[in-house]
């Protein structure tokens, strides 16, 4: 009772707000609940059952019918276990990388081994697995691959760009500022267009780069520009006396940067870095516009089947749920890290 009074009816406006929210919930939640669960069609062999219920109940049978295509795209049907295993393995790699006890140098070896296995599973071509060219990759694994390699390769590039932007050499600085600001000033779509239409023109006749790789390159460049600004923020947070101390020890530029400045800078920029990674994960969905079969793309294509058209709301709610699970996990993890970092950072850094 006391809790109610303090948290819901502490003043007149607060009380009115509570009543309005409760009224809205009573008005809209039961119909939604009925649509999504009670009257929903969960299994159906043909879309007619769904058509009959349309408007009253959701058609989750659509997801059931199309789940193989949504998750694996145009990958050969009888080989679907391969992208499934690869997706699981990739998620597993992410999970163990999030645990502190695995933050050792050999984690990189685990990643190299893991990615080799994933590459082998996806391409095949040996040990009895038929070869599958990457034009046929699609669905969830494509989203995961784009995000993983996007993070992994953009990060070193971003560090170089950030260091370049703070360099004392004017030419290096100008080039880095130019790159970062140019990419940050334009929408991702235009960078993706550039990679998909302009890159082939840049290369000598006869040399082709496959579509997946081009999209990956665009994502890496785009995200590196944003990560670079985050890393620069971290670099600026390192107090000046740390630079002076490193100089006094007689360390050169690279030793000073690698062993003194970067470890401190990256530590304070972990939470914003995680936010940028989440943004990258969401941005992978844009490859749909240049015709790659990522998760969102396979869902959109499933809707074009005339027998099952018209269940867009269900399909996009499903897409939202999948993306939400991944992004929410990452953001919850990043908040946890933020608390750890806040408690682990030396006082001198926290005060600046």
């Amino acid at each position, binding site marked *: 009772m006391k809790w109610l009074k303090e*948290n*819901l009816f*502490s*003043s007149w406006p*607060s009380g009115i*707000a*509570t009543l309005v*929210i*409760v009224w809205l919930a009573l008005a809209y939640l039961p119909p939604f609940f009925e649509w999504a669960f009670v009257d929903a069609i969960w299994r159906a062999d043909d879309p007619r059952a769904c058509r009959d219920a349309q408007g009253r109940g959701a058609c989750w049978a659509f997801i059931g019918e199309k789940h193989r295509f949504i998750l694996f795209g145009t990958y050969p049907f009888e080989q679907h276990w391969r992208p499934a295993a690869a997706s699981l393995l990739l998620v597993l790699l992410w999970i163990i990388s999030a645990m502190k006890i695995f933050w050792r140098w050999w984690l990189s070896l685990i990643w190299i081994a893991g990615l080799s296995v994933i590459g082998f599973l996806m391409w095949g071509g040996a040990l009895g697995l038929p070869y599958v060219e990457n034009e046929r990759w699609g669905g969830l694994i494509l989203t995961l691959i784009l995000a993983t390699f996007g993070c992994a390769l953009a990060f070193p590039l971003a560090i170089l760009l950030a260091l370049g932007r703070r360099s004392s*050499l*004017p*030419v*290096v600085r100008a*080039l880095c500022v130019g790159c970062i600001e*140019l990419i*940050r*000033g*334009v*929408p*991702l*779509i*235009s960078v993706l*267009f*550039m990679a998909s*239409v*302009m890159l*082939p*023109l*840049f*290369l*000598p*006749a006869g040399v082709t780069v496959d579509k997946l790789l081009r999209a990956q390159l665009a994502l890496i460049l785009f995200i590196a520009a944003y990560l670079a600004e985050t890393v620069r923020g971290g670099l600026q947070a390192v107090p000046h006396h740390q630079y002076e101390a490193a100089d006094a020890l007689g360390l050169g530029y690279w030793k000073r940067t690698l062993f003194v400045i970067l470890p401190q800078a990256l530590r304070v920029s972990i939470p914003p870095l995680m936010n940028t990674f*989440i943004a990258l994960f*969401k*941005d992978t*969905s*844009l490859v*749909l*516009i240049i015709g790659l079969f990522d998760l*969102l793309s396979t869902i*959109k294509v499933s809707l074009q089947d005339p027998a099952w058209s*018209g269940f*867009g*709301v269900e399909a*996009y*709610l499903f*897409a*939202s749920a999948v*993306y*939400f699970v991944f*992004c*929410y996990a990452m*953001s919850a993890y990043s908040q946890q890290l933020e608390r750890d970092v806040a408690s682990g950072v030396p006082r001198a850094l926290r005060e600046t």
Partner: protein
Amino acid sequence: MKKSWLAQAGLLAAVGLVLWYFASNTAQNLEARKIASGFAFLAREAGFEIGETSSIAYSAADTYLRALGVGLANTARVALAGILFATFLGTLVGLARLSPNWLLSKLAAGYVETVRNIPLLVQLFFWYTIISESLPGPEDALNPLPGVFLSNRGIFLPLPGDVPVLSGFNFSGGMALTPEFAALLIGLVTYTAGFIAEIVRAGVLSVPRGQVDAAYSMGLERRGALRYIILPQALRLIVPPMTSQYLNLTKNSSLAVAIGYPDLVSVANTTMNQTGQAIEGIAVIMAVYLTISLSISAFMNWYNRRIALRGAAR
């Protein structure tokens, strides 16, 4: 010192060489594919219709330049409206998250978590589907408020002295929002508001507790304290990240191409497909967005200096 200049000259030469290599390849490729280069195509007849021409008169007989102008006007229309509504909604949600009312603050937190963790493109498709598939036709349009009609042909709002009426198969009069525009606007506003809410919350929380206590002890109510003590001080912390949200919203409006709203990117895309002049098309897109980005940052920097200065003068 001398060595570093040498290294820089080397770097510059390497970058120049790579650019020259790309340029010469491009010239060869264009010649082989018989694609013209240069911006002469801008003066030619576009030959395609544009679904929405709100502020600039346009027909298929007009030039590509005019078509791109219409696209730019459409981008500006959705971006300006989006910034306005997203600021309003985001501020409300941000303040709601700080409300002492448990239900309200949890509701706001749930909203923020939901919209921030789902890709904007998914949200746009969702809203577009809701409007174009789930809303009824114009004859049985939903009528939640007098003069406001929601149908699968779009959203119709009343203007002073001009109320939408059903005539034939669609509404006429009032302000008509096409399904594409409405979906894009709703998606951009709800998505960006989630980010703005967090900025507003962080800004308000950054005001020292003592200031709030002082405001209350002077007899100000919560509203007065917010209006006169907290928000003016929070604003200084809010403006820089808010600028980047406005820029993000403007850049995100380019996702219009995915749901068929004829914004600049969408029109430029059609132009590229028709003329084959991809480099020029992308150059136009990039030049326009860079100009917009740089001018919004310049304006917000000016505004930021102004509010910072006023605070310092007191």
